[in-house]
């Protein structure tokens, strides 16, 4: 806390984006980086609370007040070191995290919270720019080998931690490039893929081995390769089975899962991938409806605009959230608030409390959606409000293309998981004990595969925690941090 009264002197100032008219024409990062001075000023607003709720609400326990203070004092190198102590990939969270911390910021009680996420990003980008981020030499090796299956944020952070603890780590990825959801789920305008490559280069130099296009879900391989060659295995394959909308007309052409849509777009942008005409999914000139009001939906909206959609509509079954906190969601809890992303700023229409009743088409091709307005009622004895359709509120939306962004169900059980015979919880996720260990000896799990669909920051947290327990499993005790 360089300046204890900083919050009274400076107001919150968020990052700005490139102009809409410019940014919709490309897939490059929409954010503008901010000047050093502004970072300092924003960091000076941090009060270095005796009970830092920001740090408390952060799944990985970022030491937020500490690095805010260091940024304020231009101690970038130290800020970087402290940031890195809790977060393996601040360049991802700094861009993608919904920032639970900012909702818990004490300043947010009666003022605007500190721009924590952007401060984090400023530090890590400063770090890359000034060469702070470099491969470390791991001085002593334990001789133990660990396989990490899946290369999303959970798998990568787990691998990074275990490697630091001196274990030999091999990461297996079924796709042809490393990164999982980071690479294929998130559009470049939010996370340019060079950001991932930059980090991977370091991890490789530090000794992590990456095996891509490694389809280890074939029974023999999983048995032989994993069980015999490795002292431990961490399953971090994510939760990729999408939730479907099984209503009339679902078979029509022009209805896609968001992840299929985004993955293809990402591959086209990042890898120069050219899909075959039959698999080609593109919004150019189309009327697009995105079903699902969450972050994935928003990414689809942004992607569709960039592909040149003629119009984009996003619908959500839940009512429009409040813009500000209410008593029912008091500080410091993470509130459900109306979120307007950069993609929303770029155009399109949003509808709330709308239920899709059926897809309608001509010649097997989608033309319209039939929808109805709904209301929700609190009912005694039920945790969730009950939904009711509003009579006479039926309406239709024209659509050439519909994207289902209504979430994910569970990891794929077929193949690897079933072959390994790991147990599942009642939601279909891999079940572990409190030490991240599955029902199978040597086998651990982390990330969405274990906890279900969640945030990048939770994935990193899972990766770190599981690494601690794997290390402890292998060595009897662990000096890897546990938070």
């Amino acid at each position, binding site marked *: 806390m360089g300046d*204890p*009264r900083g*919050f*009274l002197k400076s107001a919150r100032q968020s990052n700005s984006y490139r102009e809409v008219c410019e940014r919709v024409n490309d897939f490059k990062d929409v954010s503008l980086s901010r000047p050093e001075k502004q970072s300092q000023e924003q960091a000076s607003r941090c*009060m*270095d*609370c*005796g*009970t*830092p*709720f920001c*740090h*408390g*609400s952060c799944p990985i*326990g970022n*030491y937020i*007040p*500490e690095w805010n203070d260091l940024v304020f004092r231009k*101690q970038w190198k*130290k800020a970087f*070191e*402290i940031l890195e*102590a809790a977060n393996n990939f601040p360049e991802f969270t700094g861009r993608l995290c919904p920032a639970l911390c900012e909702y*818990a910021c*004490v*300043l947010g*009680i*009666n*003022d605007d919270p500190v721009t924590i996420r952007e401060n984090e990003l400023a530090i890590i980008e400063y770090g890359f720019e000034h060469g702070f981020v470099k491969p*470390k*030499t*791991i*001085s*002593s090796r334990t001789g133990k080998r660990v396989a990490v299956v899946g290369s999303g944020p959970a798998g990568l952070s787990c691998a990074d931690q275990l490697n*630091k*603890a*001196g274990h030999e780590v091999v990461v297996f990825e079924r796709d042809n490039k490393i990164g999982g959801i980071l690479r294929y789920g998130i559009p470049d305008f939010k996370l340019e893929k060079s950001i991932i490559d930059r980090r991977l280069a370091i991890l490789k130099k530090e000794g992590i081995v990456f095996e891509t296009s490694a389809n280890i879900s074939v029974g023999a391989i999983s048995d032989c390769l994993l069980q015999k060659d490795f002292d431990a295995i961490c399953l971090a394959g994510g939760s990729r089975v999408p939730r479907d909308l099984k209503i009339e007309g679902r078979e029509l052409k022009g209805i896609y899962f968001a992840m299929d849509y985004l993955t293809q777009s990402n591959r086209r942008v990042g890898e120069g991938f050219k899909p075959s005409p039959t698999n080609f999914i593109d919004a150019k000139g189309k009327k697009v409806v995105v079903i699902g009001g969450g972050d994935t939906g928003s990414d689809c909206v942004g992607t569709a605009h960039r592909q040149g959609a003629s119009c984009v509509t996003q619908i959500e079954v839940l009512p429009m959230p409040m813009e500000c906190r209410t*008593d029912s969601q*008091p*500080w*410091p*809890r993470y509130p459900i608030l109306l979120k307007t992303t950069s993609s929303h700023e770029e155009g399109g229409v949003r509808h709330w409390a709308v239920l899709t009743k059926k897809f309608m088409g001509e010649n097997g091709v989608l033309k319209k959606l039939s929808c109805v307005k709904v209301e929700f009622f609190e009912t005694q004895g039920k945790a969730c409000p009950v939904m009711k359709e509003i009579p006479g509120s039926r309406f239709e939306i024209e659509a050439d293309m519909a994207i289902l962004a209504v979430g994910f169900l569970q990891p794929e059980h077929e193949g690897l998981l079933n072959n390994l015979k790991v147990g599942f919880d009642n939601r279909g996720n891999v079940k572990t004990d409190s030490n991240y260990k599955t029902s199978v000896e040597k086998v651990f799990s982390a990330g969405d595969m274990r906890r279900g669909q969640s945030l990048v920051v939770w994935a990193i947290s899972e990766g770190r925690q599981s690494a601690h327990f794997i290390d402890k499993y292998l060595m009897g005790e662990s*000096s*890897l*941090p*546990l*938070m």
Partner: protein
Amino acid sequence: MKTNHSFPKKQGLYDPQFERDSCGVGFVCNVKGEKSNAIIKQGIEVLARLSHRGAVGADPKTGDGAGILIQIPDEFFRKIAKDNKIELPEKGLYGTGLIFLPQDDKDREFCKEVFNKIIKSNGQVMLGWRKVPVDGSCIGKCAKATEPVFEQVFIAKGENIDSELSFERKLYVIRKEIENIIRESDLNQKKYFYITNLSCRTFSYKGLLMPGQVKDFFLDLKDDSVKSALCMAHSRYSTNTFPAWDLAQPFRFLAHNGEINTLRGNVNGIRAREKLLASEFFGTDIEKLKPVIIEGGSDSAVIDNVFELLLLSGRPLEHAIMMLIPEAWEHNKFMNKELKDFYKYHACFMEPWDGPAAIAFTDGKNIGAVLDRNGLRPARYIITKNDFVVMASEAGVLDIDPADIKVSGRIEPGKMLFIDTESGRIVDNSEIKERVSNHSPYGKWNSQSLVDFSKLVSAAASNQKSEDIISSLKAFGYTREDLKTIIRPMALEGKEPVGSMGNDAPHAFLSNKSQMLYSYFKQLFAQVTNPAIDSIREKLVMSLESFIGPEKNILEETPGHSHKLRVKNPILTDDELQGLRDISINGFKTKTIYIFFDASTGKEGFSKALERICFEAEYAIEKGYSFIILSDRGSDRDNIALPALLATSAIHHYLVKKTTRSQVALVVESAEPREVHHMALLFGYGADCVNPYLAHEAVAYLIEEKEIRIELKTALKNYNKALTDGILKILSKMGISALRSYRGAQIFEALGLSDDLIEKYFTGTVSRIGGVSLDGIAEETISRHKDAYKQKDMGMSYLASGGVYQWKKDGEFHLWNPESIANLQDASRNNDIEKYKEFARLINDQSANPVTLRSLLKFSDRGGTVMPVSIEEVEPVENIMKRFATGAMSFGSISRPAHETIAIAMNRIGGKSNTGEGGEDPNRFVTLPNGDSRRSAIKQVASGRFGVTINYLVNADEIQIKIAQGAKPGEGGQLPGHKVSEIIARTRYTTPGVTLISPPPHHDIYSIEDLAQLIFDLKNANPKARVSVKLVSEIGVGTVAAGVAKGHADMILISGGDGGTGASPQSSIKYAGLPWELGLSETHQTLMLNNLRSRVRLQTDGQIRTGRDVAIAALLGAEEYGFCTAVLIVMGCVMLRHCHLNNCSVGVATQDDILQKRFSGKPEYIVNYFHFVAEELRQIMASLGIKTIDEMIGRSDLLELDESIVPLKAKGIDYSRILYKPDVPGNTAVRCVLKQDSGLDNVLDKELIKMCKDALTKNKPVKISMNINNTNRATGTMLSGEVCKTCGDGVLLEDTITCKFKGTAGQSFGAFLAKGITFELEGMTNDYVGKGISGGKIIVYPDKRAQYKPDENVIIGNTAFYGAISGEAYICGTAGERFCIRNSGLYAVVEGVGDHGCEYMTGGRVIILGKTGRNFGAGMSGGIAYVYDEDKTFKQRCNLDMVELEEVKTGDRDTIYNLLNNHFKYTKSKKAKAILDNINEELKKFIRVIPIEYKRILEGVKIEEKLDLKEALDG
């Protein structure tokens, strides 16, 4: 080895070693040595007139002990000897003494037989016994029950004795030998046995009596042939009420009023020296004198033991006393070199026996009295024209014709009154000291032998640096937080870091993080029985200087006795340590002992290393080494360091047990210590010097890392200064002035360490619940080390986060964490009981992370016998909430809206809110239109006395005397000027912008009888309000509480050491004070044992949050419960811990206007919260089958230790002492059922009020005239309260009530005197005149017939006008110490003052027409003093830290002129007249003393804005 008095044995949490006493002391004597019976009568009269300074216990007729010591009344003894058929030899050739003997005939015979045998074996002649007649009808039941048989023994001088003195020595040997035999015997009734004295010069009559009973009990005293030229008298006020016939004073040579704080260290010190004792006077008899000190005696008895040894081995009376109780010589600019050399020489082999002490001493020929260096006990004397002297704790203890008075004086700090009855004269202090200091060429000896440490230069300057600082830091447990929160501010600002809020993290033994050994110890502190010292403002009495190295026989004096190394600063730099290592002067040599062990040997290596270093130390002594360096420099990946504290204490105790400790100095070179608390522990357990090398490297590291941008040299200097200032503060907290006497004094309590660990390595330290063993400590040390190097291998280049001062996810657990805070706020705002239950679960269920002592408790069903009742049967929430109070948070520490919100809420539920220190705006006394009231029911009286007016007191339901505060017990506070806004200044009756300092002690409470006096004063001010006393939990608090109960307090609050604060040093928040569970339980048990529980209510507070907490408090004995932090959180506090920065973003703890507007708390929230707490409590009560809280109090049998939660490392924990129920008679009350008798029935004011009826009801002037004496105390206070209540505050016109008194008034004359009342006193008076005077006028002048010069004689006592609010005072005569201390607005004229005049003054005007003592104006931040400096010496006696001296300005002339005019008008002062007659010339002799800050404000200069965020230490 214990003495024989009959305190209950150690049981539960009660431990007799913490019994305290304090007293009234006095003597009368005929200077010419003329013996008379009148002297005896007068001595007895003095005793009776001091009786209000003694106390009575549960049994109203049993006193705490009283007695007299006189010269042997030869004439009388001859007479009675004859009656008993004993033939006495000539006077001086027989010795005698009063002996307490067992009731049992056989036991008594055995004792007498021992006398026969030993007298004979020592070559003396047993003459016989005489039964001493007593009248037991007058004494109390309790005393009666343990009354011994009184007999007098007569012994004739043997032929081997050639002088009276050698006979006296022989009698000493005989007494010691008999005592040793009987103590070691297995007599059933040996506790009855006691030899009061055995002497051929003096004789004492004493016993477990009230002062007034002495003359009736001992029938001898009725005989007129009992004659003496001197009579020393003593009346004891003990905290306990257990019969102790043998602790009555006077002892053999002295009588003591006060307390020796450093006792443990002194006792160890004497023990360590016993081996070398040798004296030509005793020869082989010397062995019979050991042990010199009888363990278990009171501090006074112990000092008498040592005093006696020094005297009889050849040192004169005055010499011995100067050795034990030296003046503050270190920084005294006025002391001559010879005397300084004397003190310096003796400091080489005797540490001061430190503490508040007025000691009267006599050897039967000379008699005298001395005051400790601080002058903390009162001692007034009168010398008459006919060679009579009376000295006593008070003036007016004998009626002396004023015309006869030659001198009316007081003993000054460190000074001596000495009367030589043989040569028949009073020897002046300076003469006696000159005589003693010239006895030997001490100066020459010092310059020959003493080596100044600063002269040591090492050729090889050390330049060692850790290769891998990060790993070293980790191995020694440093965290990022240590660097940021502790070391950085110390290096940057040279000050100990300050924090706020309380301690909600686990105690070391409960924590699942590896703990430093230091964290298991808590600092003890002074409360009530002795005062803390202000080490900043009164630094002239403080000293860090040490003389280290091998010692010699203390019974001799030789040039070699001062062959020591003189160290001014005990924190050594690396270069200084190198100098010591290479020392080769005059045979000094140094041995380094390495305190680390091979990492591969693990726990076994740990304990072996401990043994090894002890042997090595012993061997080093044999080899003649003078210094031992205990070093962990060189510990690395392969070598683990022992905890430095353990190593130090292990060797220290090993050597004490071998009685060789005084042969060598122990210097610690360690990476481990870094905080003030660490240093204090090392010194407290025997280290002579410490070199914290890694902490120094850490400072350098912070500079390299650009965390600090100052020069390394400056940073290190700052860091060391922060340490030394901090050490001084810790000393002063205990009331100790010199590091020399603190060293080895072990003023700590261990919490959660096992008995065998303590017994072996920290012998004598209190540890009450057992806990972690040596193995556990070894494991923590080893794991810390292992982790450090493993992390290095992993490339982790950062330290752990810490999380002790600031909550961290991966840090230490805190009960106040985001989750618990959020739930509590939700619950109370939305009145959501489910959320409250979630909150309560988070706090109550600490099975995963135990934090508090109570977390390990569970409710017991007593083997299935507990029958639950239905919840409807339990008393309602509304009843329960009346027992709730909020803690003392001052308006100043929290914002006005927050303060008022609490008051409104508490008034709504019938609970009590507390003003905290700092007064209360009278507007708040008026009820609001909607029926709410912002008035705080509890009005606190703290040491600063801010805003404590008569109106404030009258408007209280409870008046609370804050002795200590959990977060910083024993420390004062400071509200910096920038925080003193208009409104704060108004409520505190000061000037905006002026810094307000609260002194560490109440300057009118230096001992238990002083507290009783303050309680009496406050009761007078508002007889309807109850008076409570707030104490902080520490070992012995129960004993203090017993004393407080005897002082007539209605309620005692036991605060836990974890409680919150607006600002305190971090080390105090963390390491001072103990949990309330211990303090409360100890207090409840001790009060039960004393049968005092029935008279007083108990409250407890300190991090109480839930109904379960309340239930446990009730079961452990509390009737009422205080809440603090939880209430703040309910109002919006989110534990920013920024209170000390005035920067609270939610407007709770700030005075900043902008931030206060952000406050969003509401009274409803608090009401909701308390409902929930009470409801939760009801559920618990129902489950325990209890219907009312009254039934619940003290039912500790309903609690048991939950073994399943106890952490592995602390498996040895034992709560049986906490849950103990004392074995007392069945009808002993378990809770308060009686009202205290406050003794108000006979106060003079009752009469005054009657006489003032016209003034009170019709505002008509009243004039009164009456006599007064010293037993009339707090005169005018009740009247003032009445004036305030009936007429309103400040309504009465000046002089409406005029009272003229004649005589010597008692203490607190005119305390809180209201406006409209004028008190005129012809005569003199005692301490605390006009304390808190609230607009009245006090005039004091000598009796018209007295002929002494007013400006050279004392007319009023110490601490006059303490906390004066406004009014006028004209004193024709001089005052004692601390005149006008903390004056807010009084205008006063006086003709001379003692030390510390105008200390902490914040306003008003004071004119001093004569000499001042030293340290004038210390801590003075406002007001102006005008000192008439005739001889131009004032400047040297003034403390110039905060004030400027200048010439009188034109604007001052009127003030001075008018005040002097009044002074002359009222008192006829000759001095005033002389000045007025020549005013223009005389004004030039006045010096204007004005605080720098105050001057700037007067001149309209604004205080710099940048001060805005300096830390505040108030509240």
